[in-house]
């Protein structure tokens, strides 16, 4: 009981401080609560203001724009003096093809890495791999673009004899590598969430480690892994700087991996500066922004619904 007597000596002062803090806390608590509430609401506020801002800039052209041409024409000639044409089909195809190629690279690599980190390695190796992959996610996209332009481009020219090194293949590879970290970290979380009792059950029935992965973990973590992939897709669709530098930026529907392409994001980034505020070109770029917004919003909502599905599944 020596502790008790120690407390007794400090008691008057301690009690004074405690009382003062309690009094302050009583008054400060509503303030703190409101601050926190404001922080939470601000996220919603920001999303809506971003949407509102893009919508406001794009809206005036809604009436004049030929929507059919907008979505089905490959003619993108916004700065033509005589007859400007705004067809984003080639850009859409560019975005979709680069994203698809990126996913062909990122999904096997990312899920493979997630499985390796979660199931096949322990201790120091596991920790260092996780840190390294987080580091990979922290590389600025301009640096990835630089690597694609300066390193991967010449390699592609040397290996394939393509006239230019910046093309669909280059953009897809770089974008794929950029999407790997998010797929790994979300995928690893999904695998980690699978109860160990499932692994133990499978192992005790004689399953090998690989069988455990593809016969137990994949079905059990299916939704989480799908969410990981969709988040990767979202990341790839939205990426701008790296694809601007690596894809060649030519408006055309690609016929091979070595054709240069152009994406929606890169178009906005490269042309917004040269268009006059308020003219049709400027407004159409914002319409493209809305299209991108819609695509990423849809991907995120789907990912979210799937993740919710995971939670319900687990609570049942």
């Amino acid at each position, binding site marked *: 009981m020596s502790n008790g007597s120690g407390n007794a000596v400090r008691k008057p002062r301690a009690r004074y401080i405690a009382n003062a803090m309690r009094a302050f806390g009583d008054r400060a608590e509503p303030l703190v609560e409101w601050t926190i509430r404001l922080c939470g609401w601000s996220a919603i506020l920001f999303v809506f203001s971003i949407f509102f801002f893009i919508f406001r800039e794009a809206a005036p052209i809604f009436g004049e724009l030929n929507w059919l041409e907008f979505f089905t024409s490959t003619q993108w000639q916004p700065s033509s003096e005589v007859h400007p044409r705004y067809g984003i089909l080639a850009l859409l195809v560019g975005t979709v093809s680069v994203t698809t190629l990126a996913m062909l690279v990122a999904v096997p690599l990312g899920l493979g890495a997630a499985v390796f980190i979660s199931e096949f390695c322990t201790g120091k190796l596991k920790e260092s791999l996780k840190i390294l992959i987080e580091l990979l996610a922290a590389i600025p996209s301009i640096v990835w673009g630089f690597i694609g332009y300066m390193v991967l481009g010449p390699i592609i020219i040397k290996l394939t004899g393509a006239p230019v090194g910046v093309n669909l293949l280059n953009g897809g590879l770089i974008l794929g590598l950029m999407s790997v970290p998010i797929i790994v970290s979300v995928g690893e979380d999904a695998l980690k969430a699978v109860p160990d*009792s499932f*692994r*133990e*059950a499978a192992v*005790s029935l*004689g399953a*090998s480690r690989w069988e455990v992965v593809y016969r*137990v973990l994949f079905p*059990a973590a299916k939704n989480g892994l799908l969410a990981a992939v969709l988040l990767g897709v979202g990341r790839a669709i939205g990426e701008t700087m790296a694809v601007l530098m690596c894809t060649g930026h030519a408006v055309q529907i690609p016929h091979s991996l070595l054709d240069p392409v152009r994406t929606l994001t890169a178009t906005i980034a490269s042309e917004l500066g040269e268009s006059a505020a308020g003219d049709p070109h400027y407004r159409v770029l914002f319409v493209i922004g809305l299209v991108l917004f819609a695509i990423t919003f849809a991907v995120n909502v789907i990912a979210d619904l799937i993740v919710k599905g995971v939670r319900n599944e687990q609570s049942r």
Partner: protein
Amino acid sequence: MVPMMTDLENTTPTYTLQTRDLNLWYGDFQALKDVTVNIKPGIITALIGPSGCGKTTLLRCLNRINERYGNVTTTGEVNILGKNIYDDDVSLSTLRKSVGMVFQRPNPLPISIYENILFGIRSHTRRREYKRQQQDELVELALRDVQLWDEVKDKLRKRATHLTLEQQQKLCIARLLPLKPEVILMDEPCSALDAEGIERIEELIDGLREKYTIVMVTHNMAQARRASHECIFMLMGRIIEHGPTLDIFLKPTQPDTEMYVRGRYG
């Protein structure tokens, strides 16, 4: 050796499961110390003792599932049907086919009831080796053996994790049967169940004992007493006493055993 002893050994049934000087360490901590036991077929052998005495560890040595923990060192022998399972040429997959395990918490896999039953078979045979009809028969037979068929025959394609705990535990026993194991290890198989569930699972286990060698860890003294034929009492990683259940409970030879079965500690 006294000659009489060897005579005696010849008349008793051969042991399915024998350990010789089994020692086990988790890192620096020694969890098993010179464990030597002989376990007979056709009866239920219960492992009893206070928490942390090593009974679950011993059980988990018998199908080498302990090795999942990584920092485990094991020395000594575990012979199952005359083969040391710690030999280098032993395939873990084949070992676990002949030594099945039932866990404390029912752990059906998050797939259908049907696929749970066939999970083991699919790991051990090539695809297409079993025709659809044979698979159906295997599933029905296994579920009938654990008296679960009538309850689940209409929902074989439903996820097994939606069953009640008792049904899940029956399923966990049923899925071992198509593999035709020699030994079934049970780690407190009833501890997650209610009184009626316990009774039915114990009945079920008793019905299985003729075909399999059953080793069961239990915390519940009453259960050990009513559901086992031999008891092994463990303390601090050592075997203290091994004998017929009634002898262990009524006339234990070791003072520690007596203290434990009388409820002095544990």
